[in-house]
């Protein structure tokens, strides 16, 4: 009983603080505006109508209630009520105190915005629903408590936790779906299923890009490029276990090769898309090896920081005065030509989506083959224990360089396509955050496997686009989600599996592979 109350008080305090934070960053008005838009008001203006703000407050209360009751499936209704109510009340009191302070600011006309920028008088008035301060505070607290009670009600009728727990527990429906699919295509009729699957896929791949507008084509394309990057980095980090933080440098090399060889400024060489792409890939691979040679002895985070440095060096050099005449300096390079295919221009958004899909298929194919081969096993051995791998006859230096080179080549490919798609590339495209994005996506998705990488790319590059409506709360939400994902699924959205080997019978050496779960 006591512990229950103590817990719910703690929850109340936590969420009270969260709500205070939300108000201080004007999150409430932003949500209010979104609610207004959803309810069909076309131009809600800067500050939404009071009813939407009240709705927001109730939602907050609901949240408090739900989280107060989470992991408390089997409580008697009375206790649930108690817990929810206490939590709600506590957070309501905290918010109330904040609003009291805000009232003070409002009444004494103190100009606080130098310190907390959102606290304009209008905003304070709006937060108090345009009512008299006292009434406003009362309504707020009432709304929060009401919300929490609502949560209790919900919890008692529908066993909310069950849903919530399940939902939180995993997105494994994806994995299940995937497994079902596996069984389907491994099963008796696998050939038929494969034909069906491939044809469906082909149809989808060909027609979807035509259906949806240029915007989603662009987003889809970006995601595709990041899938390629992700696979490349997966070879380096996921398979051979070298933590590289400056990965985007190889991307930059690909992009700039494309730009320099294929734009009127600064050199007007105009090699055409395909040779430039090829050269970009090769140069990227080469630079991977050159970076690798001196730092082969480094491990773990030493490697990380050195590669991070490498990335920054490339970026700074690209924009520096020293190379301005060669790389266009901070201005970057414009009007990069698109590809030609059979003498026809091949550079509409849709075409690029096809191009990128092709790139993704190629990358996945290569990744897949390598992963299952002797090479892949050598990499895994190095990741697991470099010394022993070496002592078991793995030429570690060769394989580590190989991993760097191939991973870099993937990045070069993506970079080339990227540059010619945007018809522009500049030094600030290739800042540290980009590298970090790629690393995040392979880990969020689940390191070392292709579906994971794809899902990760969708999450990390698609999500910000979907979060656009959040205006400049976007990255805030993004950061929070990143942490949340790591906490809820440390092994990634789709965990890796080790392939299962059957002994090939001498007659028909067809070796089958199934999946066995594997704790990373």
């Amino acid at each position, binding site marked *: 009983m006591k512990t229950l109350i103590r817990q719910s008080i703690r929850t109340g305090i936590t969420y009270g603080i969260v709500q205070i934070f939300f108000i201080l960053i004007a999150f409430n008005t932003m949500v209010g505006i979104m609610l207004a838009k959803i309810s069909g008001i076309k131009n809600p203006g800067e500050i939404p109508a009071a009813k939407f703000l009240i709705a927001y407050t109730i939602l907050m209360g609901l949240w408090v209630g739900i989280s107060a009751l989470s992991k408390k499936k089997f409580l008697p209704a009375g206790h649930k009520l108690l817990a929810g109510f206490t939590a709600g009340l506590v957070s309501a009191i905290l918010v109330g105190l904040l609003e009291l302070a805000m009232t003070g600011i409002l009444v004494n006309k103190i100009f606080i915005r130098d310190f907390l920028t959102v606290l304009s008088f209008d905003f304070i008035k709006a937060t108090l629903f345009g009512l008299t301060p006292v009434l406003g505070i009362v309504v707020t607290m009432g709304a929060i408590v009401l919300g929490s009670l609502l949560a209790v009600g919900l919890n008692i009728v529908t066993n909310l936790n069950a849903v919530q727990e399940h939902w939180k527990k995993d997105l494994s429906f994806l994995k299940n779906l995937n497994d079902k699919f596996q069984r389907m295509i491994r099963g008796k009729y696998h050939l038929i299923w494969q034909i069906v699957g491939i044809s469906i896929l082909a149809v989808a791949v060909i027609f979807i890009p035509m259906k949806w507008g*240029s915007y989603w084509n662009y987003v889809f394309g970006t995601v595709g490029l990041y899938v390629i990057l992700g696979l490349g980095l997966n070879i380096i980090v996921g398979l051979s276990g070298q933590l590289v933080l400056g990965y985007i440098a190889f991307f930059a090399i690909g992009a700039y090769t494309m730009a320099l060889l294929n734009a009127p400024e600064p050199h007007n060489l105009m090699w055409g898309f395909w040779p430039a792409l090829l050269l970009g890939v090769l140069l990227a691979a080469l630079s991977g090896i050159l970076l690798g040679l001196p730092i082969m002895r480094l491990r773990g985070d030493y490697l990380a920081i050195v590669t991070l440095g490498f990335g920054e060096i490339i970026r700074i050099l690209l924009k520096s005065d020293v190379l*301005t005449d060669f790389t266009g300096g901070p201005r970057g390079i414009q009007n990069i030509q698109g590809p030609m295919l059979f003498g026809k221009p091949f550079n509409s958004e849709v075409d690029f989506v096809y191009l990128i899909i092709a790139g993704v298929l190629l990358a996945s194919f290569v990744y897949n083959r390598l992963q299952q081969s002797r090479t892949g096993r050598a990499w895994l051995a190095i990741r697991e224990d470099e010394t022993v791998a070496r002592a078991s006859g793995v030429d570690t230096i060769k394989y580590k360089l190989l991993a760097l080179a191939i991973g870099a080549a993937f990045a070069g490919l993506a970079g080339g396509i990227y540059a010619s798609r945007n018809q*522009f590339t500049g030094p600030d495209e290739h800042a540290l955050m980009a590298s970090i994005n790629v690393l995040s996506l392979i880990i969020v998705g689940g390191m070392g496997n292709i579906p994971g990488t794809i899902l990760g790319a969708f999450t990390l590059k698609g999500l910000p686009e*979907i979060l656009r409506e959040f205006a*400049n709360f976007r990255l805030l939400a993004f950061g929070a989600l990143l942490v949340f994902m790591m906490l809820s699924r440390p092994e990634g959205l789709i965990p890796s599996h080790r392939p299962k080997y059957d002994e090939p019978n001498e007659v028909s050496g067809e070796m089958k592979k199934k999946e066995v779960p594997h704790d990373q």
Partner: protein
Amino acid sequence: MKAMKFLAVFMVLAMLLTACGQAAATEAPVAATEAPVAATEAPVAGGAPEACADALGCAVFEAGDVIKIGMGAPMTGGNASYGIDISQGATIAMSDAGDIEGWTFALDAQDDGGTAEGGAAVANKFAADPAIVAVAGHIFSGATAAAMPIYEKVGIPMLSPSATNPPLTASGSTVFNRIAFTDLNQGNNAADFIYNTLGVKKMAVLHDGSDYGKGLADIVAAQFVKDGGEVVIEQAITPGESDYTAVLSTVAAKTPDAIYFGGYTAEGAVLVNQMKTTGLENAKFFGCDGTYGEDFLTRTGANGEGAYASIAPASPDSDAKLTFNAAYLEKFGKEAGSLSPYTWAGYDAAAALAATVKQVAVVADGKLYIPRAALVAAVRSLSNYVGLSGTFTCQSNGECNTDKPQFVVVKDGAWTNAE
């Protein structure tokens, strides 16, 4: 075999994304739900004016719809202050713009992070939104370069307050215009002014490595040498830092009479302050329109005395500007110009676009038609538009702010005319 696995997931996720797509589309206040998409693509039948009878067609607004002016700006990340500030300025312009027989204006500011990737994403989003008639932006040159071709296709005119990268107007785009102060004539005039009027013979040139700052600095250096002066040292600093004593010390060793800085107030102010501690007490500091503003004064205080800047010729404190400043402070709790030097330009870009839209808009049987082709042309032929940050007349290449700059100096803690 294995291949099937990822292909499958790939496909499933593609589907999911489309779903998200629709979700976002319905959630967003995209006019697609109101205005028939077809109307924007092809000439519409019925009451549509013949102005719509071309490939680009018209943007059509039902009663109660909002005319949207887009803006692509960095709202997050290291440069967010520019995006947020300029969009805030533009927001005020929208409320000042009034309405066309009941149809009001609204600003749709989207985060492009200042990068090409973001710029293209935002441009595609705007291109897909029939309610967007024009774009006040983009803010950074990289984003702008990637966005231009996309707007070109759908006939959305741009009017950028701050994308100063010279090649942008050289690429022959019909939709791109800017009221940003042209580097070329600002730089040349500044150099002449320093050499002739101030009589400086030895000058050091610094810039912040951005396309704007570097572009300007290079021009100034070249012209100054042409005039017969000596550029003793040209150095780039790393923006975003706040200790430049090292670079200033090396500059001091060359004993220049003046320092020209191409860049923004953030670094400019630090330089001015640290000049005093690095043996450059007696050298003049000469900034550009990027270092002009109230903020420079507050940040440099006494050190700022005698610092020069070159600005677009607008009477520094016209009544309009004063009212704007008041409105800005009231609405956003900051002095106008304290976040970036482009507040006023942001206002001007949005206001000018709104005004142009008013010119071309046609009302027919309860609907508002905005012919896109006409709008593009109208923006390009903008002339003698008097704004807060200058008077704009667009050249055929889209440069709209080409007048001779005006030079100001800090005297007794205030910007005063230097001529």
